[in-house]
């Protein structure tokens, strides 16, 4: 009882821990999470998983169906499809993570400032969001890609720049609601600065829905990348992403259907996993369902 160090006292259950416990009980979400980890590891370890390089051709073989040597078959240039899917997954997952990260940083900062400041600052910042929202973004993306050339980094930034808008709106709404609560008023009356209040009191409490939305943004970003690559504006051969693989698969759909089916399955599997995880997170983090 008379411990003098804080660490000696029993630790309480934080809301994060509470959510984690609930998430672990959700079987679908756990399966989703595991699938994601496995997929990510496989893609990262592609050189060790597969004996082939992604541009290594077997011209004698040409396009061949699944076999013992090439589990998922080969494409028209005789390249191993499994290998290309794994390498393509690196790009797709990276786009998903980096673009979402960009969206997250811009969106959370923008939304939190607008929501906390309120009044005129809020009005101006959110009208800007509205205006950007109104631009036909596909055209904007295509234009940028045409003007600046096909640059991977640019692809990430451009997609991130599309996705932060919704994030900003979500965070602003959260912050506006939280701002009414007395603990924010208490923080003001303690004399904390505006920035400290945003950082220590507002963002940690607003972050729950943001995490959920993030897991749902990653799939939409990956789809966007797939779409851009499908249009031929994203990844250049011989590099591949799932989107570009699917695009190639579509061209030869009738003769070599596996070239479309397997990349499509890889993308769908990942998206499913993300969605299940996102659902589980939403249930786990939602305070309304948490107090039973």
């Amino acid at each position, binding site marked *: *009882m008379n411990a003098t160090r804080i660490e000696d006292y*029993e630790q*309480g*259950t934080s*809301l994060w821990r509470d959510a984690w416990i609930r998430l672990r009980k959700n079987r679908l979400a756990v399966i989703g999470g595991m699938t994601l980890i496995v997929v990510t590891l496989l893609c990262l370890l592609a050189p060790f998983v597969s004996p082939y390089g992604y541009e290594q051709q077997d011209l004698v073989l040409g396009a061949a169906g699944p076999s013992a040597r090439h589990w998922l078959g080969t494409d028209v240039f005789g390249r191993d499809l499994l290998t290309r899917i794994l390498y393509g997954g690196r790009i797709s997952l990276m786009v998903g993570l980096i673009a979402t990260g960009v969206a997250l940083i811009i969106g959370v900062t923008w939304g939190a400032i607008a929501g906390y400041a309120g009044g005129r600052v809020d009005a101006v910042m959110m009208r800007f969001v509205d205006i950007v929202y109104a631009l036909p973004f596909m055209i904007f993306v295509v234009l940028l890609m045409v003007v600046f050339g096909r640059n991977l980094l640019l692809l990430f930034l451009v997609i991130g720049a599309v996705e932060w808008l919704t994030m900003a709106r979500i965070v602003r709404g959260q912050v506006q609601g939280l701002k009414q609560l*007395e603990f924010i*008023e208490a923080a003001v009356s*303690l004399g904390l600065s505006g920035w400290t209040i945003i950082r220590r*009191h507002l963002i940690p*409490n607003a972050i729950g829905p943001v995490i959920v939305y993030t897991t749902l943004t990653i799939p939409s970003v990956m789809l966007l990348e797939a779409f851009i690559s499908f249009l031929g504006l994203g990844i250049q051969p011989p590099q591949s992403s799932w989107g570009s693989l699917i695009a190639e698969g579509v061209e030869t759909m009738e003769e070599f259907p596996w070239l479309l089916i397997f990349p499509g399955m890889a993308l769908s599997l990942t998206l499913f996993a993300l969605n299940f995880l996102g659902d589980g997170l939403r249930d786990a983090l939602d305070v309304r369902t948490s107090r039973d």
Partner: protein
Amino acid sequence: MALLEVSHLSVSFHTRNGIARAVDDISFSLEQGQTLGIVGESGSGKSVCCYSLLGLIPRPPGRIDSGTAMFAGRDLLHCSEAELRRVRGDKIAMIFQDPMTSLNPFLRIGEQLIEPLVYHRGQSRDAARKQAIALLEEVGIRNPSQTIDCYPHEFSGGMRQRVMIAMALIAEPQLLIADEPTTALDVTVQRQILELINELRRKRNLAVIFISHDLGVVAGIADQVLVMKDGRMIEQGPVHSLFDNPADAYTRKLLAAIPRGAKSAADRSTNQDLLAVNDLTTRFNIIDHGKSSELIAVNSVSFRLRRGEVLGLVGESGSGKSTLGRSILNLIRPSSGSVCFDGEELVGRDNQQMKPLRRRMQMIFQDPYASLNPRMTIYDTLAEPMLLHGIASKTDVDQQVLKLMDDVGLARAYIRKYPHEFSGGQRQRIAIGRAIATRPEFVVADEPVSALDVTIQKQILELLLTLVERHNLSMLFISHDLAVVRHLCDRIMVMRAGQLLETAATELLWAAPAHEYTRTLLSSSQTELPEAR
């Protein structure tokens, strides 16, 4: 024969975390024209007990384990859903705590009254409208032939509760169950609603079950009282004997917790002004349907607070008392006037300029569930202000936090727990700890006990008194509850519609209120013990 005869009722809730006995072996009976008061703190099972009679508890997780409830010859606990529905619509009516959430905000109240008359009673619309107007008149709504076409939000809280009562009366019930019907209302309005229920009971020979956490209210209206705690019946009996000689220790504790009588601690006021407020005015711009109008929440208020004084501020909801408290601390920017704190002018300062003064003036909030950051441990919450204002350094902050926890009566073992792991009373202790962490000289306490159960209320009030003495605090204590204020304050200010009506030493105000409004407030808030009836 009794109208309602409940025997050995037990209800439990089966959840993931185990079985909770919400109601445990409760028996009571109620005659026509009688009022039964059911009293208990939150979580005592008083509402569940009544809801289960009407089949209104969610099943599962709820389950009625045993018991019978004979009402007019049939057992409510064992009849079909269809039969129950008929009883609910016809014989037993309910009114709830918050009349706003029980009325459909999109329908005129007339429509809400007429509809059941037309559909269930088969009356013509004209006849139904006439009867609706008569009902509104009966529950004391002025000008019913016009107000019948208003929407719920156009009524005040008390008027809405009257509308709810009118709706409950449509079916001409024999039993009225009122679940905390006056808790959300101001004291003067509360008194009127109680009188209305009493009058209806007499006129219509109604049986009434009146659920409340407030012994004082129940004392004024009930014939029989049932005291509940943790689902069990503690004591039951006629109101007189229960109040005159409570048999059980818990009932005595409840009775003792009703704040009564004058302040026990000595008046520590000095002659030195700590706070001087002059002509303070706070206006809000309200934009309604595109038209901007101005609400004067605080209207040129002037007063002085002496060092060491506990100054009470009373008023009903909407009187501007909370706005005044926040304007003084510059949490809401006042529009004009002056607030002088220990010789320093506060009005017109921005947050940066306020910061050195923030340490010296703090606030305690009403709702301990909203006033603590749910993601921070007690340690983080209490250490933050200390580190910010340099009260403690990184090396001794741990010790300081532990000391502070002793000070506000929190066990040290809780230091790394999060707010959701605490009860309301403990949370309020944490919030009080945060307010005194900076060792302020002046604290604004905005209804710090009104969200708490009455026994907890008493403990928190005692804590506040102790702290005021130990740390030589001066306090502005805002409350709608006159009994609480009388118990705590040296002087009292009465506020209405943004203006101060009068200021007087506590006992002087009780003995000789100068203002008519103060007299009304005082007479409505007296805890009416049975001998006074």
